[in-house]
């Protein structure tokens, strides 16, 4: 019996030892950031041989669909790169006791700290690996060949739709414009048309006239062949679909996505054609994009919070954040890094110009848009939008029915979550 007990204790100690020092990161990539992280972690492990960092490179849909289920079951990685930061914030670890200098984190990442912690909390749960802004990209070569001038920064959505249609007709391109299948992507234009999702009590407001106006316009564009219908009808439910590949393949004249596509385009388009970032087109109320980004957060179910703290401290440090931004071509969130000159590692003048456009576009971001990344019900709204608008685009629902269903879906989500 004694031997049995001793061997059991020894075995459990061994298994504890096996876990200690292991840090698992769940990571998705839009561009080259996975490779950059791998390199950075290699250097970290050289300096910290007692910590073994494993990076699980997964697709973005895994992060959106599978990670929440793992977290709800009290499992998951130690650290994850996530965009759905607020809705999952109850699963994030408060790093305050595990990081070296909480003040450094607050000073440099405090602006987005609320996006990734429960309402009313002062926890430090992670940091933004990059801040993003939605915005458009034009295939400059196609516009030039068609002899259509690229609309200016004050151009409206209607101006862009008309110009893109002219280009597509002239150049025999299948799609004048494309918008990712995402509620987040619909939201910038909707706010520009006067939408406001947040009611006075902080709960979701019914879809207002501004939102309805843009959705009506967007569904019409799909029916008229102006917007790429395939992206929106190619799935049911809330599945995310991007039109990036079609833009990269020269099949789309104007593509509304976001700043995270810049490194992707730099790598994949190369010198196949010229492209430019154009900011967000205007509506009657604003010319806003949607802010957002991916955050790196610690998961509270980790067995090694101290080691997780060390990894997070390393990645959030100023020189590493600067290097990460310069190599990935992402707009950094770190205040100190932003204050200094960034030397983005690219010879591509289109990339530098595009980054400048997004930085200057951020000045026109509306207050309504700025509130949404830290709002608890954003995802309930986005899910209802994407699911019902795609049914309207497919011709399954009338616009009035779609608007009613959007309100019903959001009300149901709020009811379920309470």
């Amino acid at each position, binding site marked *: 019996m004694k031997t049995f007990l001793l061997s059991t204790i020894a075995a459990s100690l061994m298994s504890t030892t096996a876990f200690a020092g292991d840090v698992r990161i769940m990571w998705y990539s839009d561009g080259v950031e996975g490779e950059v992280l791998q390199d950075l972690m290699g250097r970290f492990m050289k300096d910290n041989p007692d910590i073994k960092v494993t990076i699980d490179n997964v697709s973005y849909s895994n992060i959106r669909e599978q990670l*929440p289920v793992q977290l*709800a079951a*009290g499992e998951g990685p130690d650290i994850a790169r996530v965009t759905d930061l607020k809705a999952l914030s109850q699963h994030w670890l408060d790093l305050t006791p595990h990081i070296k200098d909480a003040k450094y984190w607050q000073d440099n990442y405090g602006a987005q700290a609320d996006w990734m912690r429960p309402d009313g909390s002062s926890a430090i749960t992670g940091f933004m690996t990059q801040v993003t802004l939605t915005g458009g990209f034009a295939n400059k070569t196609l516009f030039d060949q068609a002899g259509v001038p690229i609309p200016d920064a004050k151009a409206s959505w209607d101006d862009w739709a008309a110009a893109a249609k002219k280009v597509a007709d002239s150049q025999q391109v299948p799609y004048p414009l494309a918008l990712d299948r995402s509620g987040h992507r619909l939201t910038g234009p909707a706010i520009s048309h006067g939408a406001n999702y947040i009611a006075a009590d902080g709960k979701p407001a019914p879809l207002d006239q501004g939102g309805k106006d843009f959705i009506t316009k967007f569904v019409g564009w799909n029916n008229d062949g102006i917007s790429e219908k*395939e992206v929106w*009808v190619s799935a*049911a439910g*809330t599945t995310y679909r991007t039109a990036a590949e079609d833009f990269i393949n020269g099949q789309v004249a104007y593509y509304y996505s976001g700043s995270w596509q810049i490194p992707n385009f730099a790598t994949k388009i190369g010198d196949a054609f010229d492209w430019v970032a154009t900011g967000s087109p205007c509506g009657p109320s604003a010319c806003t994009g949607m802010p957002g980004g991916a955050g790196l957060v610690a998961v509270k179910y980790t067995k090694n919070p101290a080691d997780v703290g060390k990894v997070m401290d390393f990645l959030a440090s100023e020189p590493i954040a600067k290097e990460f931004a310069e190599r990935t071509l992402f707009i950094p969130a770190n205040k100190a890094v932003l204050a200094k000159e960034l030397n983005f590692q690219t010879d591509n003048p289109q990339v530098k110009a595009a980054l400048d456009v997004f930085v200057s576009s951020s000045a026109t971001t509306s207050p309504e848009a700025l509130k949404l990344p830290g709002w608890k019900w954003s995802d309930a709204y986005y899910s209802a939008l994407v699911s019902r608008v795609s049914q309207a685009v497919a011709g399954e629902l009338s616009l009035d*029915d779609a608007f009613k269903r959007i309100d019903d879906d959001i009300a149901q*989500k709020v009811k*379920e979550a309470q």
Partner: protein
Amino acid sequence: MNAQTPSSAASRLTGALLAPVRYLAGIIDLPLRGLQKVTGLTGMASFFLLPNMAIFTIFVLLPLIMNVIYSMTGGTAIFLDSRTFVGAEQYSRLLDCGSYLDSGTCAEDRFWIATSNTAWFVLLQVPLLLVVALVTALVLNRELKARSFWRAVFFFPVLLSPVVVGLIWRWILQRQGLLNLMLFETVGAQPHTWLTDRFWAFAAAIGVSIWAHVGFYALILLAGLQAIPKDIYEAAEMDGTRPSRVFWRITLPLLMPNLLVVLVLALIRAVQVFDEVYVLTGGGPGTSTMYLIQYIFETGFASQLRNPGLAAAASILMGLVLVVLTLVQLGISRTNERKGQR
């Protein structure tokens, strides 16, 4: 020295291979005999059934019971202790309809869209699959050149993962896919968006699922065909019976038990259609190829704000439909057996 005959060598080899088995049987023989003394013969039957029953209980019965419990709870939490009891609320939401024939009048319209899509899929796919499987089996049962090769060809898709099946066909049917390229090269046709056209996407879902599964059902029917005694056909031939009459009067009736098995299996599988179609169309365009399992999966797991209770209730309702279908099939099967005995 006597030359060893092949049969004695084979029996020696068999003996050598069975030796460890005999040794192990010898070890467990004594405790089993003791157990039999205590439990009796009936008890031993239960003892041997125990592992199977344990697996069934852990992997089928308990999840089923848990599913029923989940279907009576609300909220987004996964663990039962964090969920609130809501009674039959999830069921009443699913069944809350102005008219069951119009999903637009239902509170949970997507459930009824998925139900309607699944019903259409079953009604179209199962008969088509049966016909294709039967024709395939009849052809493969003939004296063909390289018959084994052709059998392998038809069975090959069954071995593929449903994800691979979905991806292959998506690659063929997408706008810049192989089919459009072939149509353009041969007849100069403009590219068609097969998977975003409601009719063609539904047709593709049915076609691809038949392609993927027909080999399995054809194999069952082929086994049935080969079990039909040859002398019946010889007698029919001597009587000068027409081939069509042979098929309707001999082959089909004698193949009926196998056809019933295929029908039951195909029906159950069709109601559960998900994986290859999900990869192929994602449930689109709109919700035209969203079937019940996809609805359950998205409601319970894939959407950003999950509703496991509603998903569980939907799966219980679907399970009830499957039970009814299986009972009907069993009833028909037993009636046929009784007719056959008379």
